[in-house]
């Protein structure tokens, strides 16, 4: 912090030339660091289309591998088999050739899709690059829209997401297709079908395994429960042997608990097992899926909107926001924002910043604060305006006090750097040292 000058503050430091440019003006450098910090928050923005791109590459390559392997083993089979005619051989080989031609076409198509997805990744990099001082307001506006589209997609408001993306042409900057994929699984789960979810698990088997996910296990458990609910106990047991047993090593306790449902009917009153039969379990599966999905694509678990809102509300949160005369420009003057902010901590600042009660402007070197004899503080600009409009008289808007010229001989030092004096009939400011807030 600033060191305390000893002795006469007038002698302490020579009066610096506080031109508006140096004092309150913003130099480009701080804005640039701020912009860089803001860009650093955009990991998800770049990661999601990239994961999508990687997935497409993987899927396409696997298809190629599978087909080639199949063709080669087909050749091996034919060459090893005993009874075939020349015609058979010809037919077989011709069909293999056409399969490979088909594969080539598919490869072409896949390549086009990959190219489009790569374009999307590039478009996002370009968008980040495009942010600069001139178009900052628009870039920030686009960011708000991106954050809102992310919220819509997470809450499954797909129509609104699309409409919003279309309205400002930001389709490349949002992840609607990725969430469409999720929608299929979510819709099915809400219809009590696990098939698409299981297919998704197998598509992403290796990565789910790496993150030690037990989502597939949970899906299998639910299928088992449904079999028990339908009183297909024998089928349930067979199912358990095939699909649940492999998970026994790592999740024995859960397995045992669910297996025990065999002993109960689905309308059991026993609380532990009643819970397992609740339709709510399906909602739980949907939530689990959403979490796994977001993790896989490098997305945050919470919607971006919530993250930014929480941080912003906390940073704006002061006890003064809840007073009746809080300015309308403060979001926390609104009931809905106050509601969201109430469980959040107050902001903390290390530097004094004074705002004029009348004009809501910052009181700094260009517009220093003045102290009336009753202790109420207003900006120089506000008091001068008031004096101009009222024949030189000023009235404290909060207390009604009308200080007479003689009473205005008061000195105030705020933050130990600027000396202010209200003199007789005019408000005069003496600036003794540089103003640093």
């Amino acid at each position, binding site marked *: 912090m600033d060191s305390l000058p000893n002795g006469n503050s007038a002698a302490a430091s020579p009066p610096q030339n506080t031109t508006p440019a140096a004092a309150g003006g913003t130099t480009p450098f701080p804005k640039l660091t701020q912009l860089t910090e803001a860009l650093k928050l955009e990991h998800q923005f770049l990661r999601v289309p990239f994961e999508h791109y990687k997935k497409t590459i993987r899927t396409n390559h696997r298809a190629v591998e599978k087909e080639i392997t199949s063709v080669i083993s087909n050749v091996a089979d034919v060459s090893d088999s005993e009874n075939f005619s020349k015609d058979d051989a010809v037919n077989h080989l011709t069909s293999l050739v056409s399969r490979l031609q088909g594969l080539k076409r598919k490869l072409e198509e896949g390549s086009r899709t990959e190219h489009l997805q790569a374009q999307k990744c590039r478009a996002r990099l370009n968008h980040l690059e495009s942010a600069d001082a001139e178009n900052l307001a628009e870039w920030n506006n686009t960011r708000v829209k991106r954050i809102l589209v992310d919220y819509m997609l997470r809450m499954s408001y797909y129509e609104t997401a699309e409409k919003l993306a279309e309205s400002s042409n930001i389709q490349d900057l949002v992840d609607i297709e990725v969430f469409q994929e999720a929608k299929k699984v979510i819709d099915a789960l809400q219809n009590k079908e696990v098939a698409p979810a299981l297919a998704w698990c197998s598509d992403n088997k290796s990565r789910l395994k790496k993150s030690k996910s037990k989502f597939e296990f949970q899906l299998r458990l639910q299928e088992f429960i449904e079999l028990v609910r339908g009183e297909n106990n024998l089928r349930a047991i067979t199912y358990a042997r095939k699909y649940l047993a492999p998970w026994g090593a790592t999740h024995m306790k859960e397995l045992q608990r669910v297996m025990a449902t065999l002993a109960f009917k689905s309308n059991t009153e026993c609380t532990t097992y009643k819970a397992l039969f609740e339709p709510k379990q399906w909602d739980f599966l949907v939530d689990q899926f959403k979490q796994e999905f977001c993790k896989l694509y490098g997305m945050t678990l919470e919607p971006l909107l919530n993250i*930014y809102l929480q*941080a912003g509300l906390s940073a704006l949160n002061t006890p003064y926001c809840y007073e009746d005369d809080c300015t309308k420009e403060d979001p926390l003057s609104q009931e809905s924002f106050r509601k969201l902010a109430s469980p959040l901590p107050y902001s903390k600042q*290390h530097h004094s910043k004074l705002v004029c009660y009348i004009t809501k402007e910052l009181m700094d070197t260009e517009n220093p604060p003045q102290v009336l004899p009753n202790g109420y503080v207003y900006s120089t600009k506000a008091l001068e305006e008031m004096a101009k409009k009222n024949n030189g008289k000023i009235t404290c808007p909060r207390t009604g006090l009308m200080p007479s010229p003689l009473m205005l001989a008061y000195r*105030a030092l705020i933050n130990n750097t600027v000396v202010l004096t209200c003199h007789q009939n005019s408000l005069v400011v003496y600036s003794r040292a540089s103003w640093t807030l």
Partner: protein
Amino acid sequence: MELNDIKDAFDRVAKKQKLSCSKTQEVIDLIVQEIEKALETVKSASHLDDKYVLTELKRRLQDIAPLGQLEGTQKELNIALSKYTKILEKSFNPDISKAYRNIEFDTHTVSQIIASHFYRQGLFEVGDCFISETKESECSAAILSIFEDMYQILEAMKSGNLEPALKWAAANSDKLTQNGSDLQLKLHSLQFVEILRKGSREEALKYARANLAPFASNHVNEIQKLMACLIWARKLESCPYPQLVSQTNWVTVAEELTRQFCNLVGQSYESPLSVTIAAGVQALPPLLKFMTVMAGKKQEWQSMKQLPVPVELDKEFQFHSIFVCPVSKEQTSDDNPPMIMSCGHVLCRQSINKMSKNHSRTFKCPYCPSDIDAAQCRQLYF
């Protein structure tokens, strides 16, 4: 963070992908070639035994080992892919939810906020769609109608029609003057210039007499400049007051109208959602930085009354005065207000109490050598 490095890393990925693709095509072609060769041999009535041909084919294919050939390019591609992932993780903050408190936001409140935001930004269709998808009833009907009016006026202005704007300004003329806004005059000036642009000096003069005259007493200079423009009717480009006649003036006036409109209906100028998000963008970096230090203490984080690190926002987010006592470094509050001493310096009450040992003795102001009597200090109200 060097965006160019990241772009380069991605270009490498794309390059490797293309290579992999073309190699795959190559390999498939090879296989096709071999099979077609064998096919020809079998079809032609050659002396070679069919089975022999097929076995040869099988052997040839094994020799080519197509999948093995692809391994090389695949490996390079995978390396490029993982390098890109790493550079993303290094250049960006991979988890911005680290500073998130597990507090549920009430969905209804959030929906209300979002709907209001859509309407005040003029995105009426999106807003309607949102309301129907969320099944929130007319929670924002009031906001909707207020801003519908405003956007109608603004849309008309965009297409060059000032009538709605003038009507609104006239209806609210008193309040506008109270706020110190000269919007009415500005709108009339725009209209005046448009009439001039279309060429009719007569009409412009008539308009000026009817609509600009009432403002003459307070805005002598502007009126003079406008009247001078009469000389340049039909040649407005050469008029010496370009800022009065340029099209950008319309944008400025539209902004002023928006500002005054919002003010008069008791709304903020900026969407509160945009403001909060912008504040969040500035607040997250220091909070996240703090969390990397705080890693294990998530419990404390959840229940704090005040943020543990200072978050300095830009001045457009400063709506309330904050005074930090230079001695105790604490923010003043109702319980601990700022007090001005007789020398003019300001400390918080607790500091003054401490330094005067609870008003029992005088002390020296930490900034100037004056003696301070605690009882003479008075409270400041920002």
